[in-house]
Every structure is written in C-alpha cells, then in structure tokens.
C-alpha cells in the first residue's frame, strides 16, 4: 500500500481563483528555537488542504498563527486578500476562522448547549441569556452534523468522539469560512470518521476552506485536494493529493540527511541490564511491550505523540504499575509498584515536563540534586550538610551546570542547566537504567550538545539508557538501537545501521 498511488479524490474541488486564506512568509521563534521559517501557505474556498509533518515540524505553530493564538515574528496572514491586523483568537473567530484541536477544548461542567453558545452567541459578557434560543440553536447545529446528542447533557460526560462532534457543531455555528482540524480522526471509529468526512463534504460545498492535519496519511487521499509538507519549520512544497503517494510524503517529511551533528561515541556494550517482557498496563495503555537494553547502550524510543512512549516510561518507573509482564534489572526480577521500588531496583527516570515534574523550582540546586537520595545523605534522619554539599558540588562540576553556586534556586537557571540538575538528581542514585523522556526538548543548541555528551559519558560508564525523543535527528544521531512505538505497542526495533528516518516513520505511522 505504501507504493500505491492515491485514488482520485471523491469530489473535485471548485476552481476558485483567489485564495480564501493565505499565510505569507511566516517566521516564528521560541527563544533560540526557530519554529517556522519563511512559511507560505494558501487555502482556496471549497478546498481541503492537508498539512503533514513529523512531531515538531511546525504544524501546530502554523495553525496557532492562523488563528491568532500566537503572533508571528514576521509575515502576514490574509483573508480574502486583506491582511488580518492584530490577529487574536477572538478576532479570527469573528472573521469565520474556527479550529478544532486534537484534545477537545470543551468546558466539562457546562452543558452541550452552553458550550456551543459560549463561542457563538453575539454580544458581550453582560448580555441576557435566552435559554430556549440557546437550546434550539444547539439542537439545530447538532442535527446539521447528524449527531444525536442531548444539548442538556453535561459536556464532561460525553465520550471523546461525542465531544469531538460538539466541537464541530461549535465551529459550524459561527458561519465558518475556514475550518482547521488537528488530527480529528485520532479518537474516532471508522463509522464516525465517515460521518465526519460527510460533514466536511457539506462544508466545502458551502464554499468553506478546510485545513486538515492528520498522521493517517492514507486517509488524505480520500479527503484532501492538496497536501503541504512541513519539516523543521519549513515547507517542503505543496502537491496535488492525487499525484502523491505515501512513500513520497514520508520521504518529504523525513528529509534525507541529519541537520545536526551528534557527539555519539562507540563504547563497550556489556550485558543486558534492562530486560522487559510482555509488559502490559491497561491504565497506561501499554500492551505487550518487550525490550532489552544492555550496559553502555542507548535505546532510542521513537513514535508519534500519544504512541505510549511516556506511558511506557511511567510503567517502568512504577507510576502506573503494570498488570502483567516482567521487568528484570541486571538479571534479577524487579517488582515495581511505586517509584520507590523502581529507584531501589536501579531505575531512574528524568521526566518530560522539566518544570512541573523534573526540578523543584523553589529549592536550591543543592537540594534538587540530592532529592532522590535523601536517605544516603542522612544519618538517622538527619541531613549531613557536608555530605550533601560535597555530592551537589561533584555533580554540578561533573555535568557542567552553570549556576551561581549550589545554593542558587533552580528557577534562576536556564532550561538546559535545569535539565542537567534533573539528570544529576538521578545519576546521584547510581542507577543501572536511566530513562530520559525528551531530554533536550526546549533547550538551546549548545546545552543540547552538552546533554548529548553527558549521555555518551553515562553510557560509557556502563548505564543502560532509554531515550524517548520526538526528534528524529536525535533518535538517529544518539541511539545504538531504535524502538518504534504505536498505539501502546512496540512495532519494531532496529539497529543503528538499519534505522532511517523513513523506516522509523513507516513504523510509527503504521
């Protein structure tokens, strides 16, 4: 199927000359990271224009620029040829641009009718509420999309697909001209997907333009007229969906060579340290995962957002204990029900969300570095400050943490240095297995290279490292082997030599 050409789209779009919506020369930086670079994109009335790219390619940022949720550093957005000045979610909404995100943005405690009314009713905050009209409108909108949902139900009690339908009803209410859908079918069944496609069909017949983001490349052939590929914040060109096959798309998404140089060193690979067999956790959505990682080895874990990578790490670390399967560390069976068990077994986990889960911002560097080993720096429950200071100093200098000293609060450090402190905390536990979840996300290039150097040092010291990353270049550049996940399962494991961006994406997209 990967080589097959797409069928002709079901409906040939009406040819309209001027684009309905146009983004021109958009550039956006977040700190040192360039999220978008000279991106141009246009949408015609009555068209479905698909936007594809791997995680972090800039799709979400582009959408946020279009809806006014973020302001671009350069470039303009035009609607009907006129530049939208001072764009904001409120303004774009008033102009008829509506977006439906992957996670439904509903208010769970309000009713369906109230949710729909919130964005669609005219007037300010002081307006009087007409409950009857509100209910009637909601009913009307829901019927229009063929959804049988009681407008009086609490939105939080609806299933995910039902919430998605409410979102669509919400979007349709405001006489929508441009509809943006971010992975709308991710949580829908096939029948619901069909229904959605029918609704989109009606919309385009009304002359609306649709921007459609999806990782299900095969469905694009059915629904899209044109496809634009984003990679590393740049457009890789726009193509007619009818003339493009999946293989071409994957090649465009992946790119051919690595854009960065990684300080990967070959180190001695030892015995198997982490041996996971048949790991299943219903709570985490992990199914039958088996993995082996040897001493000195870096196992990269790739996959799309939501593929279950973080959940796997949380299961290994005892945050969502496994229902079945076994975890062996250095040959002995580890029963892991809570983080303390994992730490005792020699597993360390540096979580993804550094600010919320990694460091404790209000505590000084010293206390952060020693938080996981309080037992070891305490005698009879008393903290030995000499031991604590010595340990903290050691790790600060070994990892090259740039700080005003070990008593400086962690919040005063840069992102990259905070991450080093988070890593220091876990290395201090002298683990056998180190799990790093998105270790270099959102830190600048220099700090990133240093984190990679540290990973190599740790591997050389005999640690087994599991590195979860959404950045393909990082996965390819740092891993000795690559495991790819999709839907809570491992869909393939490849050696460094065999792993390519294309092969990883194929396994990740399924």
């Amino acid at each position, binding site marked *: 199927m990967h080589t097959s050409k797409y069928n002709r789209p079901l409906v040939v779009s009406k040819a309209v000359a001027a684009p309905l919506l146009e983004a021109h020369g958009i550039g956006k930086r977040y700190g040192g990271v360039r999220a978008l670079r000279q991106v141009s994109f246009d949408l015609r009335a009555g068209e479905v224009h698909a936007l594809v790219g791997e995680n972090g390619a800039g799709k979400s940022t582009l959408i946020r620029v279009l809806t006014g949720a973020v302001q671009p550093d350069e470039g303009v957005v035009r609607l009907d040829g006129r530049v939208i000045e001072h764009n904001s979610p409120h303004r774009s909404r008033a102009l008829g641009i509506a977006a439906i995100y992957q996670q439904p943005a509903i208010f769970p405690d309000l009713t369906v009718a109230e949710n729909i009314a919130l964005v669609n009713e005219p007037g300010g905050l002081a307006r009087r509420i007409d409950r009857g009209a509100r209910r009637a409108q909601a009913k009307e909108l829901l019927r229009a999309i063929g959804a049988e949902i009681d407008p009086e139900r609490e939105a939080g009690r609806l299933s995910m697909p039902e919430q998605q339908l409410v979102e669509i009803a919400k979007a349709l209410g405001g006489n929508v001209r441009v509809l943006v859908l971010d992975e709308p079918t991710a949580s829908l069944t096939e029948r619901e997907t069909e229904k959605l496609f029918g609704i989109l069909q009606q919309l385009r017949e009304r002359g609306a333009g649709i921007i459609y983001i999806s990782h299900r490349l095969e469905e694009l052939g059915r629904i899209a007229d044109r496809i634009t590929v984003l990679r590393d914040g740049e457009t890789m060109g726009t193509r007619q969906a009818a003339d493009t096959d999946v293989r071409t798309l994957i090649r465009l998404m992946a790119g051919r060579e690595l854009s960065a140089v990684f300080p990967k060193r070959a180190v001695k690979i030892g015995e198997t340290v982490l041996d996971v067999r048949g790991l299943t956790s219903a709570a985490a959505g992990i199914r039958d995962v088996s993995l082996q990682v040897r001493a000195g080895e870096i196992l990269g874990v790739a996959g799309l957002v939501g593929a279950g990578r973080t959940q796997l790490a949380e299961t290994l*670390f005892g*945050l969502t204990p496994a229902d079945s399967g076994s975890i062996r560390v250095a040959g002995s069976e580890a029963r892991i029900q809570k*983080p*303390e068990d*994992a*730490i005792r077994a020699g597993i360390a*986990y540096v*979580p993804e969300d550094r600010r*919320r*889960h*990694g*460091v*404790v*911002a*209000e*505590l000084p560097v010293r*206390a952060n570095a020693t*938080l*996981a080993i*309080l*037992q070891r720096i*305490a005698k009879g*429950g*008393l*903290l030995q*400050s000499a031991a604590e200071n010595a340990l903290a100093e050691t790790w600060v200098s070994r990892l090259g943490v740039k700080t005003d000293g070990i008593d400086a*609060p962690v*919040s*005063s450090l840069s992102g990259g240095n905070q991450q080093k402190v988070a890593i220091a*905390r876990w290395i201090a536990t002298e683990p056998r297995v180190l799990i790093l979840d998105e270790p270099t996300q959102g830190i600048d290039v220099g700090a990133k290279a240093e984190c990679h150097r540290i990973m190599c040092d740790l591997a050389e010291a005999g640690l087994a490292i599991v590195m979860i990353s959404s950045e393909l270049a990082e996965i390819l550049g740092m891993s000795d082997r690559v495991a790819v996940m999709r839907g809570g399962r491992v869909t393939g494991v490849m050696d460094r030599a065999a792993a390519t961006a294309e092969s990883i994406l194929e396994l990740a997209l399924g």
Partner: protein
Amino acid sequence: MNAMRQRAVAIAIFWAVLLAVLAWRAPGFFAGSNIRDIAVINAPALIIALGMTVVILAGEIDVSVGSQFAVASVVAGLLAKAGVPLPFVALLTAGAGAVMGGINGALVTWLGVPSIVATLAAMAFWRELLRWFTQGAWVQGLPAGFQWMGFGQAQGELAILVCAALLFGVMVWALRNVQAGRAVYAVGSQRESARLAGIPVSAVSFGVFTLLGALTGIAALLDSVRFSEIQSGAGAGLELKAISAVVIGGTSITGGRGNTWGTLLGASVLAVIAPALTFLGINAFWEKAIQGAIILGAIVLERVTTSRKMKAHAR
C-alpha cells in the same frame, strides 16, 4: 527566597515602628511584667503556628486547630482531675491532638478530601462533639498540682516560655536538618516532582497534620495550666491567629517557601497589636482591622514581588 526576605523585612520594620511609637507614647508597655504577660499568653498560639507553618509549607491547611485545642484542653483537665500524673497528662494530651490531626491527615491523604474541606468539617465536628459531651460546663475542681504545673505562678510562667522556646528551636533546626523537613518543602512546592523523586508524599501529608495536632495538644495543656478551671469554649478563633502568623511571617500560602523564623515574627506582631492599642488608648475595636490590614499587606507584597520576579524570569 528574596521576595520572602523582603516581606519579612517590611513586617519587621512595621513592628519596629510600632514598638518605637510605644516607647515614645507609652513607655509603660516595656515594663518587664507586661512583656512577660504578653509572651506567656501568646506562647500557645506560637506553638500552634509552628505546626501550622509545616502544614502550610507542605501545601495544605488546617482550620480545625481551634476546636482541637478545646478538645485537648478538656482532655487535659479531665485527666488531671482523674489523678493522672502531670507528665502522663502532657503525653496523653499531645497524643489526643495527634489523633485528631491524624484523622485530618488521613482524610486528606487517603480519601483525597481537599484539606480546607476536611478540616472545616473537623472544626465543626470536634466543637459540637465537645459541646454535647460537656453540655457547656467548664472543667472545675482541678487538683492543686495542675495549675502552673505545680511550680507556682512565676516559675510556671517561666516553664511555659521555656517549653515554647525549646519547641521553636527544635522546629527551626528540624526543618533545616531533618530529612523529613526537606521532604515537606519538596512536597509543598512540587508534589509530582517529589513523588517522582521517590519521596513518600502520602506519609508527608499525613505526618504534617499529625504533627500539628500534637503541637496543638501541647499548646492546649500549656494554656490550661494558667487557669483554675477549663472553659469548654477555649480556642475559638485560634486557627485564624495561627494561619495569620504564618502568612505574615512570609510563608507562601501555596506551600514550598517560608520558615519558622518568619512565623515567630508574625506571631510577635500579632501578639503586640492588641496590648499596644490598649496602651496607646485606642479603641480595641481596631485590633481586627489592623490585623486584617497587615495580612492583606503581606499577601499583596508577596504577589507584587513574585510577579515581578516571574516577569524578570520570562525575559
């Protein structure tokens, strides 16, 4: 850290100004006996505020300490009346407090009841239970060895002050040097991070409530020995006084930041206001208004300084 120090400095300046005005307009305030009276009367509130500091540092709150205090006072009185030796009365009273605090802790930790809700319920429950039990009667006919712990007034007062000072010293030291103290800060400032670092967060939450309960029990005993009988309505409003002392002392109401030195400062400020008004000949009616203004000022100061800090950080 800096914002906290700033707030402490501002409060200390206010306090110093108040004392200076007193020295100028009513030097009688500084008579040894007056200072001593103020200290003895407020020692129990300080002890409770110490426990409250730990609870707030851990990101929780307990509004039931006033009711716990009343129950513990009556327990102490009844035990003494029954002829239990004083050291055991002290132990059992602290134990009764620990049990009441532990119940709060269990509700919050294992049943997931928000601490404000759980302790509000406990506040009403213990107060009403006591009302039903005593029928509003005071505990009278206490044995001679109970009042002033059998030391006589002068030495009894000294004993109360020594107890409070010792507890204060222990708390200052423990929060800095004991493993559990570090855990309290970590849990209060980033619970999830702490959990991921292998800190037993449930034990910490349960522990802080239990500790506050025990300290409340001790405070109740130290307060009761000043009188020849025990009111069953004791401790009303004490929870507000304790929480105010903590907040005025610069401890963040959302947890994670603060220390017991601040609480000592806060308790000292609150202790001085009412007698200062009396000495300055101002209507005591103003006491609550001034207290409220100080608390509000302290919190606004925190908001202003932290939001400025965050802006600087974002840049």
